[in-house]
């Protein structure tokens, strides 16, 4: 009896092969096994036989939406910024997408980073991805040479190590609190939609910090980012970070210094998170990509919570619904504005 992920892998290969053979897509974006256990690498299948290399398991932590716009552009004839768009239909690309990835694709469509017509999305309802760091913690950082995945457990093996770990215990924080595991846009589905999950305390991590005093919050923030080496892996893994020149690379004006000076690291993390406000789908790529184990996802989660509280919308739920910070209402809350609070006092 194949496990759920094995049957998804089979169906994914079949669908990708069909798309490539029939010429519907020029390439298919998915995952293949990496060179070490628990690390998968994004993979572009360009020939039907490549489809056999596609894999699906619980370690596909990076967001494939991140690779989609550059991949699509690679199939366009080269042109300069002011040249007109090429005539005629352009080649399409197929891609596998879970809930959060598909929401990021919606954001990219809304932000004109890609066209919906040019992607064939194979939807997969997500069962949550495994946090490699949690597995390593569970075995006290012993060497792991192989991991075999069952539906609800992981069998971890290494020199002098054989341990069965409950899968849900090592699922990433963002997947544990995910409410929308189903893809919002797709052309074909693998498996069934599971519907929204009912999570009561999805913002628990954020609320714990909100309840601290200002001083303790600053303490938390600085200690969280203390180990940051400014490798920008979080930025590079993020499907929202596509600016040709990132603010960290600007030199005139230089918004943030390039050293590991604590102030500059703090400003980098504040601005990186803030630039994702109203756009972040909490896919957790940033955290999964971080080599130092910084939980910078809590920052974007806070922004997500505020945007939901203030404007009642979440990013990427539908192509028709504009992104919360690129639209407005006449009667948006404005108690934070000084002159408005004066008015309140006078009443």
């Amino acid at each position, binding site marked *: 009896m194949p496990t759920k992920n094995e049957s998804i892998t089979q169906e994914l290969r079949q669908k990708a092969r069909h798309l490539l053979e029939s010429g519907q897509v020029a390439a298919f974006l998915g995952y293949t096994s990496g060179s070490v256990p628990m690390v998968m690498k994004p993979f572009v299948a360009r020939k039907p036989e490549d489809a056999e290399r596609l894999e699906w398991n619980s370690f596909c932590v990076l967001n494939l939406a991140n690779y989609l716009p550059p991949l699509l552009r690679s199939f366009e004839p080269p042109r300069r910024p002011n040249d007109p768009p090429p005539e005629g239909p352009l080649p399409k690309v197929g891609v596998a997408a879970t809930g959060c990835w598909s929401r990021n694709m919606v954001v990219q469509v809304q932000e004109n980073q890609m066209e919906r017509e040019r992607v064939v999305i194979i939807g997969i309802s997500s069962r949550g991805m495994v946090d490699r760091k949690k597995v390593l913690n569970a075995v006290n950082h012993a060497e792991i040479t192989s991991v075999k995945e069952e539906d609800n457990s992981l069998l971890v093996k290494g020199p002098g190590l054989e341990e069965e770990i409950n899968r849900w215990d090592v699922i990433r924080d963002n997947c544990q609190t995910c409410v929308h595991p189903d893809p919002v846009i797709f052309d074909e589905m693998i498996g069934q939609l599971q519907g929204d999950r009912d999570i009561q305390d999805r913002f628990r991590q*954020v609320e714990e*910090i*909100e309840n601290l005093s*200002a*001083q*303790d*919050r*600053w*303490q*938390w*923030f*600085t200690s969280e980012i203390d180990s940051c080496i400014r490798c920008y892996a979080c930025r590079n893994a993020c499907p929202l970070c596509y600016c040709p020149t990132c*603010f960290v690379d600007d030199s005139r*004006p230089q*918004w*943030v*210094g390039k050293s590991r*000076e604590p*102030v*500059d690291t*703090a*400003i980098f993390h*504040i*601005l990186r*998170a*803030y*630039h994702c*406000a*109203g756009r972040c789908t909490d896919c957790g790529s940033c955290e999964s990509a971080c080599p130092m184990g910084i939980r910078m996802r809590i*920052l974007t989660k*806070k*922004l997500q919570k*505020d*945007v939901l509280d*203030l*404007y009642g919308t979440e990013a990427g739920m539908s192509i028709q619904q504009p992104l*919360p*910070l*690129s639209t*407005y*209402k*006449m009667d*948006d*809350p*404005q108690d*934070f*504005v*000084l*002159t*408005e609070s*004066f008015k309140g006092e006078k009443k």
Partner: protein
Amino acid sequence: MNDKAKNQKDWEPKIIAFLCNWCSYAGADLAGVSRYQYPPSLRIVRVPCSGRVSANMILDALRSGADGVLVSGCHPGDCHYISGNYYARRRFAVLKNFLEFIGIEPGRVNFSWISASEGEQFAEVAKEVTSRVKKLGPARHLVKEF
């Protein structure tokens, strides 16, 4: 700012004020022309619209040693560019909460709406912001020592 200055009793805060060209800057001008008294702690930066002010600028002001920041634009509905301040309002609401979340004291970063005819209100806001920042003392969290 060196420690000596921080300990001085007669410390005056430095506050960067981003004022929109069409309303708040004119409001500040009117406050001056009408001879309303307000604290000399504001350093005014004239911007085309409150929508022009990005989080980058606010944080850059703090990083460069400002003790407080004030961003002021036209009243909602009065924007010279029709909707600039509506967008700004959403962004600032989120930014203010976010900065407080990571431990910046409430009162460091302030927002207000001041029209070109509200000279008196500008003076009031300047007093209020200055007294808030004075209560908090010199900024420590995001100041870079160059």
